């Protein structure tokens, strides 16, 4: 299989590369810790062109998008965005996404961002359901047409302000505007996955280098993206949920707030039942008290009662300097402060449950 190349491949200098969702992406430019700290304290830029871009337009664009995502699409005015799940009939997460209702100046009505490597499958899902429901909407996979650069950190606004005429003070969190960035026609969204203020910039592939090089700040790879999102307790597709390896509903994954049960979407009835009955297991934050690094797949046990569940993601938190993790555990362990153990190379290491986000944001 040939790995997909982001449009910025060859532009950035000497990164360590990794295969992520079928794309060859930078994992680290300098050091994960340095990149992580730059985003928390100043600013960093990420090539996130591996994220999918799918547009939906036409008379039934709203209905199609509403029926395939868990959140309240009707709540979006032009220029608004929302985080949502994409679930199957059983309420199991197939993907998580951000749905943008595009500004009126744009040709398309909605844009949603499937995870890396999911763009083809999600486009197909939208097309199949459109046809089945006899809706009228154009669904277009624009992943190869767009580059996406995330500019994140407390200094992101000041950096972006030098390259756009857009009034950034009036662009709120989860809002999107059409605006020139470094002279290119871009979409500027106040979104991101780091827990910091910041922007995601969508531009045509031909302009990717112009946008990337316009910002003089720390280039960051997927390694820092992972530690930043993990400190916030944000989900990573394939780790915290996966249709086959980790089938989980939004309630289990602790993103129940994205589920609008008063709308009609695939998976709604199953989720309504689960909301009523409660879940047996939930995604819980952990802090390791012993030395070690909890990682995906490690078993979590109770010192008294044995096996409880498993770690989905873990790392040494660069901000806190302690090992942190997310794990699926029986719901009674969702309260902070419960004593558990993470089994690392056969040794139970003392840990306790902890509220997320792990950092104050």
């Amino acid at each position, binding site marked *: 299989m040939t790995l997909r190349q982001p449009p910025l491949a060859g532009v950035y200098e000497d990164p*360590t590369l990794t295969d992520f969702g079928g794309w060859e992406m930078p994992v680290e430019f300098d*050091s*994960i810790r340095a990149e992580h700290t730059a985003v928390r304290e100043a600013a960093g830029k990420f090539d996130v062109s591996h994220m999918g871009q799918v547009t939906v337009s036409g008379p039934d664009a709203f209905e199609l998008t509403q029926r395939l995502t868990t959140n309240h699409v009707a709540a979006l005015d032009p220029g608004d965005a929302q985080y949502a799940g994409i679930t199957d009939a059983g309420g199991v997460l197939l993907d998580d996404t951000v749905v943008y209702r595009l500004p009126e100046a744009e040709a398309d009505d909605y844009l949603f961002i499937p995870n890396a490597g999911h763009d083809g499958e999600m486009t197909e899902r939208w097309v199949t359901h459109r046809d089945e429901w006899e809706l009228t909407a154009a669904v277009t996979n624009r992943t190869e047409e767009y580059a996406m650069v995330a500019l994140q950190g407390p200094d992101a606004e000041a950096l972006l302000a030098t390259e756009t005429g857009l009034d950034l003070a009036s662009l709120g969190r989860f809002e999107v505007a059409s605006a020139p960035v470094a002279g290119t026609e871009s979409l500027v969204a106040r979104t991101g996955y780091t827990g910091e203020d910041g922007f995601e910039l969508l531009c045509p592939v031909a302009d990717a280098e112009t946008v990337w090089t316009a910002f003089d700040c720390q280039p960051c790879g997927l390694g820092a993206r992972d530690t930043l999102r993990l400190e916030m307790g944000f989900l990573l597709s394939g780790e915290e949920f996966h249709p086959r390896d980790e089938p989980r509903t939004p309630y289990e994954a602790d993103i129940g707030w994205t589920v609008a049960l008063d709308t009609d979407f695939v998976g709604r009835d199953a989720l309504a039942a689960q909301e009523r009955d409660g879940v047996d297991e939930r995604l819980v934050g952990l802090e390791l008290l012993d030395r070690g690094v909890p990682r995906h797949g490690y078993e979590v046990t109770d010192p008294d009662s044995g096996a409880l569940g498993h770690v989905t993601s873990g790392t040494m938190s660069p901000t806190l300097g302690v090992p942190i993790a997310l794990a699926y555990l029986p719901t009674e362990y969702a309260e902070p402060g419960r004593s558990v153990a993470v089994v690392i190379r056969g040794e139970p290491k003392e840990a306790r449950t902890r509220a997320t986000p792990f950092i104050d944001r």
Partner: protein
Amino acid sequence: MSFDVPDDLRYLESHEWVHTDDGPARVGITDFAQDELGDVVFVELPAEGDELTAGEEFGVVESIKAVSDIYAPLSGTVTAVNEALFDQPELVNEDPFGEGWMLEVELADESELDDLLLAEEYREQIE
């Protein structure tokens, strides 16, 4: 990018180094290895008095992104452990051949040294 490979050390293909002088042999991981791992956040080492067997794993080094076993270049008895690494694992990144050393070992069989790579041979391997 070029990596530091001191001439006076011996090396294992799995990126450990050994320094021998009069006393016990000192063991660590190479500049190349620390760079591949990235930010080292945790080191698990044997205790003083433990026995090592050449070629077998004796510990673990973890960075933010990876876990890696560390292999014994030589057989012998551990006579000292660099306990500074438990609180400052980043010393492995900052000074892999100096402050980032891991163990001192009283060799069981000095002839095992002949099985290790010379600096020039290790340099060829990582180029």
